[in-house]
Structures are given as C-alpha cells and as structure tokens.
C-alpha cells in the first residue's frame, strides 16, 4: 500500500485534533489506540451490538463499521466528553447509576451516547418510541427495563416534567 497513513483533521470532544491514521483502521481503532478513549468498546465489530457507538455531527454511529479516515471535518463525541471538569457525572450517567441500569457496564457508554442524542433532540417520546430509539444496542445483563427508566427519567427532568417513581 502506497500512502498507508493519512492525515485526518477533526473535532474530538470539543477540541480540534489531527492524526496520521492507518487507512485500514476503524474509527473505534483510532479512538481507542490513538486517543485512549476506552469508553468506546469493541463488542461484535460488525455493527450489531452498539457498544462502540459515538456521536458524529450529532447523530449516533457504530464506530466499528466506520472508517477512521471518514472522521475528516467531523465533530465526534464520546462518553468522556460528558464528565464535568472534576470528573463529575452528567445527569444521564447519574440516572444510569440511580436506576441500576448498569451491571457489567460494557454496553453502558454506547447506550448513554444514544441517550444523549435522544435528550438533545429536546422532544418528549413515548415508551414505544424510546424503545425503538434504543433498539440498536444489546445488553446481556440488565434486561433493558432499567435503562429505559434511566433515559425516560432524565428526559422528564430535562423537559421540566414531574417524575414519579411509578412512571
């Protein structure tokens, strides 16, 4: 291969960055190996499980089936961008803790980033709509119900709606 390494300039978690990346790399490879963003998990690596999910220009993508060179000019966000300056958890992460939506935690960063896209839309969704929006993720531990509650609770709070425990 002639020019195996290519210059890729993009915005990562709010900072402009550039990287000489192997053109055979997936975006997961680049985020984990070059930037040590280990919230981006390798699960299936064929687009089925959502463990590697990140936000690209505000939309969710499975980074395992996204070439690293496609990051050119994009705004990419990973779970690491949600933490406060002293490592404080964001509301959606705290809701995952409070609702016991985390067991082994492998699926969690992917789910949380999809939740961020859902929450940033500013819309209030029904349970059925939320289930569909979350359906690109597999969780082998929690049984999904607590994840749904964590997202719904945060959606209610951000939209100024009253949250009751039996919602």
């Amino acid at each position, binding site marked *: *291969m*002639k020019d195996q390494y290519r210059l890729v300039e993009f915005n990562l978690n709010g900072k402009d960055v550039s990287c000489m990346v192997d*053109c055979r790399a*997936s975006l997961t*490879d680049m985020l984990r190996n070059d930037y040590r963003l280990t919230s981006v998990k390798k699960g299936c690596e064929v687009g089925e499980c959502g463990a590697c999910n990140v936000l690209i220009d505000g*939309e969710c*993508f499975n980074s395992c089936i996204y070439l690293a*060179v496609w990051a050119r000019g994009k705004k990419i966000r990973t779970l690491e961008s949600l933490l406060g300056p002293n490592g404080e958890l964001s509301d959606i992460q705290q809701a995952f803790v409070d609702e016991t939506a985390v067991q082994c935690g492998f699926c969690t960063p992917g789910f949380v980033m999809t939740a961020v896209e859902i929450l940033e839309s500013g819309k209030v969704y029904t349970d059925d709509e939320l289930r*569909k929006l979350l*359906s690109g993720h597999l969780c082998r531990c929690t049984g999904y119900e607590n994840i749904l509650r964590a997202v719904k609770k945060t959606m209610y709070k951000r939209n100024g709606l009253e949250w009751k425990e039996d919602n």
Partner: protein
Amino acid sequence: MYDMKELYEAFSVEEAVKLRVEHPEAQVIAGGSDVLVQMREGKRAGKELISIYLVDELRGIRIDEEENIRIGSLTSFSHITKDPIIQKYINVLGEAVDQVGGPQIRNIGTIGGNTCNGVTSADSSSTLHAWEAVVELTGPEGVRRLPIKDFYIKAGTVDIREGEIQTAILIPKASYENTYGYYWKYAMRNAMDIATTGCSVNVRLSPDKKTIERARIAYGVAAPVPVRAPHAEAVANGAPVSEETVGKFALAVLEDINPRDSWRAGKAFRQHISVEMARRCLRASILRAGGAF
C-alpha cells in the same frame, strides 16, 4: 483494522469515476454497512476499496427540473425518513427505511448501498420497485438512467458497468402523484433483523374514491430479486374499492411470486404471509388515499 489491500478516496463524482476506471478490480464502499461486515467475515478480505462516502454532492433530496423526486445515492435512511419531500409525496419509503436495522444503521446505511447490493430483502427495494423508481448511474461516458426492474439482474448482481457509480434514485411525477402506499416488513424481531418477506403496495384512487385507478405491489424475498406482482395488479386496476377486490387481489399474488425455503422461513409460510401482507397493505393504502370500506 480492516483487511483491505488499498483504499482509494474520492471527494467528487468525477474523482470516483476516474478511480473506477483506473482500478477496475476495486470495490465501491459507500456507508460500508455491507462492505465492512463482509470484509470482517472474510468474504471481501484483501480487496481494494474506492470510498465514495465523503462525496457530499451525492447527499440530499430535491424535486428536479422534470419534477422527479431525486434522492442522492448517499442519502442515509434516517435522512430519507425525516425529509419533508419524502413525507409529503412518498411517505411509505421513509417508513420502509425506518425499519432497517437500528438507529445507528439507519444513520450510516445509504439508499445507494441498499440497491447496489442487489439483495432481495433490502428494505427500500420493494417500495422502489412498486413506485417504478429510475436508477441513475454516472460513468466515463456520462449519465445513464434505467428502470429499477432492469437494474436488478440476479441475486447480488445489478447493472453497474465499468467505471460507473450509482448517483441517484428518481421517482417520476407520474408515479408519485396522488399515490399512497404502505409497506409491511415481516421479521422475527422488531429491530436489527432482516425481512422474512417485505411487501409494498400503493394505489391511486378515482376522484370519488370509489375505484382503484392504479394499484402496484412489489415484494422482497418472494423471489431472488425484488418483484412486482402483475396478476394481482391486473385484478385491482379499475376495480371498485371493496373488501372483495382486496381479497381477490391478495390471492392473485400467488400467480406471481416464487419464494424459497430457507433457514429463515419455509416456502409455504412465505406464500401464506405474502397473501396476508398484500391484503393488509392494499387495505391500508386505500384508507390512506381517502377510500373507505
């Protein structure tokens, strides 16, 4: 890391065509949700790729000078579903592609990839057949257009010639005017599953909503490539809006389709659901067109 031999990157249609001519062995990669998975599985391992994913001129939907709905080949499923032109004139296409995979797949998957893969189960393909879409290809000799039914040659093979890429899918005005449709995907799971069978129907009713002026129906996974059901269409065309018409139409599809036994479902089961899907889709289309039973 992907096991690819070389990655050529195009940023315009012109560059893509040039790369296609220079590297006839190389395979086009758009969103990569088929290509990269097959590369991982080993089926496409060690191949050269031409990436067209960053050719932004191939994204977006508009009404062109001839009043066709023009969908750029790189437009993602989620952008098709959200598009106001699609919602106004061919909502069923937006609904069909909203049943592909899950949200992340709908953000990466393109309509070009969904048709160029030549796969019968592709969720956009039955609707595009039922609406007589036109495929636009651009190559070294310029632009070529052909009806989608001629684009599909056999399972997994479509009519893309040397140096060409698909640049758009067009829906002609005569096809979308006053037309309402419905798509049914039958799968084992609500998300992240491939259709056992997919059925797309659309109708245009007479002004008094009592007669079916034109009915069109197409299936995915009823044959090696997506197919129309002309016998069923002949039964419905010009017939009164009634339960009887819907019933006859649905049974007539059995003269047209030839589903196979596979690990997903048996032939008899596919035939059974095909009839039921035809019935439900025609009923729903008629209701959407303002008809009543």
